[in-house]
């Protein structure tokens, strides 16, 4: 029986770690065989060509993950196996490609540009790998084993209770509470989500303007200031205290939801570098190969 719920790194007992080691060691042997020859190591020795061809083939194969992932009826292994291979063999690409270049990456030309494109792809891939390995667990901890729809329902239930409570409080306070509910902002651009920027606002009656209500801090402060003043009015005091504790829960929930969004964008944002730079890399690579063979 295959082991259940295995990580992509340890997939099939680190099968592709072994492939990684073999390809790196083999490339290294090819690379070292250039030393002691009249010409210094470079991309134009036969060893350089072998390493270059190998890294090109690797890169092309790595891009096939995108296709395999969408071929749901494919019989060619499992997607997890492909991902595991993608990670390990992808890791070997910069090493093999560096040996191919023999360190000649100082000049500013299409060849080094292609190399740096590759490095962006690799580094963003690393970020993605890190996210895939660590974020899901934290994401699960954050939402406490519930799904996010549960928290959104809870939030809207609290909002309803707050709107109801607010309608019984005096006009000033009521308008502040309602404007805090209205002014709550969740989500936004990928970057906003990733950084967890909270653009929530409310209309402060005292200051006569719209102020920031990030993390619900402003409304909580306003309510906490009003509570002592209402000590003579029992009904108002109860209403204010209720609103205060509801905003406390609301703050918690918004934090959970915002954190969840942050995690979700962490899981996908690296792709915004990984995919476009893969395309750039492929184009760069084509030019690199073309130029080498026809103009060098």
């Amino acid at each position, binding site marked *: *029986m295959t082991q*259940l*719920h*295995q*990580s*992509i790194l340890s*997939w099939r007992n680190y099968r592709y770690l072994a492939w990684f080691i073999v390809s790196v060691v083999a490339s290294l042997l090819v690379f070292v065989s250039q030393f002691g020859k009249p010409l210094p190591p470079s991309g134009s020795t036969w060893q350089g060509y072998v390493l270059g061809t190998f890294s090109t083939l690797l890169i092309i194969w790595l891009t096939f993950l995108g296709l395999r*992932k969408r071929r*749901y*009826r494919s*019989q060619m292994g*499992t*997607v*997890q196996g*492909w*991902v595991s291979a993608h990670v390990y063999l992808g890791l070997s690409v910069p090493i093999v490609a560096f040996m191919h270049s023999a360190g000649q990456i100082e000049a500013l030309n299409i060849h080094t540009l292609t190399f740096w494109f590759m490095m962006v792809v690799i580094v963003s891939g690393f970020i993605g790998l890190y*996210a*895939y390995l660590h*974020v*899901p*667990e934290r*994401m*699960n901890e954050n939402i406490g*084993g*519930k*799904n*996010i*729809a549960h928290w959104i329902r809870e939030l809207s239930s609290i909002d309803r209770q707050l709107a109801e409570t607010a309608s019984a409080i005096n006009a000033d306070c009521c308008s502040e509470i309602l404007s805090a509910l209205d002014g709550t902002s969740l989500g936004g651009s990928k970057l906003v989500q990733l950084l967890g920027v909270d653009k929530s606002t409310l209309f402060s009656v005292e200051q006569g303007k719209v102020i920031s209500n990030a993390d619900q801090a402003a409304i909580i402060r306003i309510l906490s200031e009003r509570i002592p003043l209402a000590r003579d009015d029992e009904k108002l005091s109860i209403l204010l205290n209720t609103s205060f504790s509801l905003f406390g829960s609301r703050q918690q929930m918004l934090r959970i939801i915002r954190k969840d969004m942050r995690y*979700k964008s962490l*899981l996908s944002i690296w792709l915004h570098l990984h995919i476009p730079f893969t395309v750039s890399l492929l184009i760069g690579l084509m030019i690199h190969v073309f130029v080498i063979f026809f103009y060098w």
Partner: protein
Amino acid sequence: MQSTTANHYELVIIGTGPAGLSAAGRAAQLDLENGASSPTYILLESASDISSNVRSYQKGKHVMNEPGYLDLRSPMRFSSGSREEVLGNWEDDTARYALNIRYDSEVTGISGSKGAFDIQLRDKTPLGCSAVVLASGTSGNVRLIGVENDRPSDFVRYTLPDPYIFSDQVAVVIGAGDSAIEDALALSKQNYVHIINRRSEFSRAKAGNLKDVLNAINDSDSRLECHYDSSVMSLQLPAAQGDQGCLVLTTPQGERTIPCDLIIARLGSLPPRAFLEKCGLTMSSQAAGALPDLDRQYQSDVQGIYLIGALSGYPLIKQAMNQGQDVVDFVAGNTIVPADHTLIVKRLGGAFGDKGVDDVLDYMYEKIPLLQSVSPIAFRELIIESRLFVSGEWADRVDKTLSGIGAPVIKPENSFLMEAGLFVNKFYIVVEGSVSIQPYASAAWESSGPGAFFGESCLFSGRSQASSAVIGANSVIIEIPRRILIKLANSNKAVREGVDQSFVLGMLQAIFKPKIPSKNLLGLCARLKTQTFEAGEQLYEENTIGDCLYLVRSGTINLVRGENRKIIADQYAGELVGQLSLMGHPRRHNSAVATTRAEALVIDAVDFEELLHNNPTVRKKLEDDLSVLLQENNSLATHDSSAKLMGFLMKQGLGEATNALVIDSSLCVGCDNCEKACEDTHGGVSRLQRALGDSLGRFHVPTACRHCETPHCMKDCPPDAIHRTPSGSVYIADTCIGCGNCESNCPYNVIELVATSEPKAPLWSRLFNALSPSNSSGRAETGSVVVKHAMKCDACMSVSGGPACVRACPTGAAARLGSEQLLSLLEK
């Protein structure tokens, strides 16, 4: 033809249910063909309207036209529809044929003999005839409550055509069958209802009804109260119109009196034995539900008296109507082949050469002791629903031009009928030749001859088959579908007991391998009692003294220990529970709790000791098994969170799962590739919803089919469209009619009724089609037909390589597992 005088007819048909109406319709047709000047038949009805039984169905009830394989052969129209539509057709056709009906004519007796019968009517009008067709059914003879004052009245009722005419009353419903439940639920909408159940559960009810009634009973807001283990002691009629009467019950808590406005008793009906015996007919047995023996033309042992419909053992409307038409032809001496004749010819496929269908059926019937108490007519139905497997000379005779559904399957000698480790949904009986069975891997093969049967263990336990079977030389074997066997076992005690005994014997043999000869186990087998445990019910308590052990028949039993009820093992069908206290110290070291509804055989200490004493090798085997179990217990007991998690997984149905999707949230990146894969492999509709479903800790059980050991969805599927592949995957075939029974029977809400759509074509072909005008119009046409279809996960049975959801998961978060892998999940 003999002339018909005012009070003498050729044929008297009694009863205007579907059978009687159809017979009268046929008689009217024949009269027309023969140019009779006045009707040669008369149709008698005790009430003042036709079909009082169908009329007593609840308003708007959907009437089904089962069995689907049979064509209707009757002058009267009938198709599935509402009670009103069905009755409307019959009323129209009664008028169309101007049927010669005499209402308010209760028959009290029949005397005389063929050609000269005297029909005694309650109003004493003289009536004579040459032949009688009894089509009066059993509904006129409802089972009464059996106490004083139980005669039908406004207070005590035996039918409830319209429950909504009552409101704000206290009603008592007696009975635990489907009609009792349906009445109680309908009444409870406007009234306070007590339902009286003689037993501790509603075991006879359809799962849908069961769920509804249990929900209503457990719902504190509902006005339905159930009295379990209670029986009626007496009842008191209301003193005056508008007063309450009362019902006195014996309950486990003592006597209880319920004042009420209305009593509905739904205790089923019985054949009118006294009447039939008075007419001179012999009943087939002493049992209360026994029917008279009939020949193939439905003629009883009194020549000239014919029985059709429920009185011939056929309660289904369509069959009764076909019988009605056929019987009139039989009486008139016309040679006809019954409506199902061609079906049987196809089933036999010429394997029996030139022998007539009836002779072959008689011959087969003789060969199968298990089915001796099944009526010839029911046997006929069984053959129609089954398939034959043939080998050797029998196969040579099969007409090779016959193919497709229902034709005999030709098998080479020694080819597998059933393989160990696979799920079998069929039951097999040897008619000719032999079968060789290997009860468990590494056991010796044993050959059995005609009359032997096998395949029941998988049907009963829901676990994969432990034994293998191959067909012998020159053999004929009947393969009976699960549904038909279960129906037969439910209605026939001898079949039920015969199959059950074989099942128990097989289990005992598997436990006590190396095997004790069957004959040494037969005595024990007969003594064993089956006990049923509801989910959560305890088999025994820790620290008590054990005097018996349990062999699990079906379901899952957890062994739990200590104050916090830590789970130390889960035991499934075919495994022992509680043997430790019979083999070691008698004090129980753990408690045993049923986590799903479970059945277990109780083996008491004396029997067990005797068995061990006589079979020393068995002791060694059991001791070895026990020590493996103890090691397992220990490893699980060291995990603290296991108990809670196990409880969660059990609640999610993993205890009865063979293939459930479990997502490890600590690996899931939420990419929904699993859903996309499901969509892509299943015509654009995903059968799993990743984000829905419950979670505990790392484990998330999405809304997706568990492929249960004994699938809840398979119960009561009218077209029998839910099947199981040999690997255990439960799937819904295209024959689904979208009735929604499975959807309401599934406890995990994984079945959806969806309008079927066309599979998504590849992008290039969609582009191509969009450019081609002829194709696009064709697509629009097919797309406009909307048919509802029940849909659920089929474990990607049509895609090789296993479920697409798992294979498409990039991080290994999605895994599918069966109940036996739960422990490995917890040990992580």
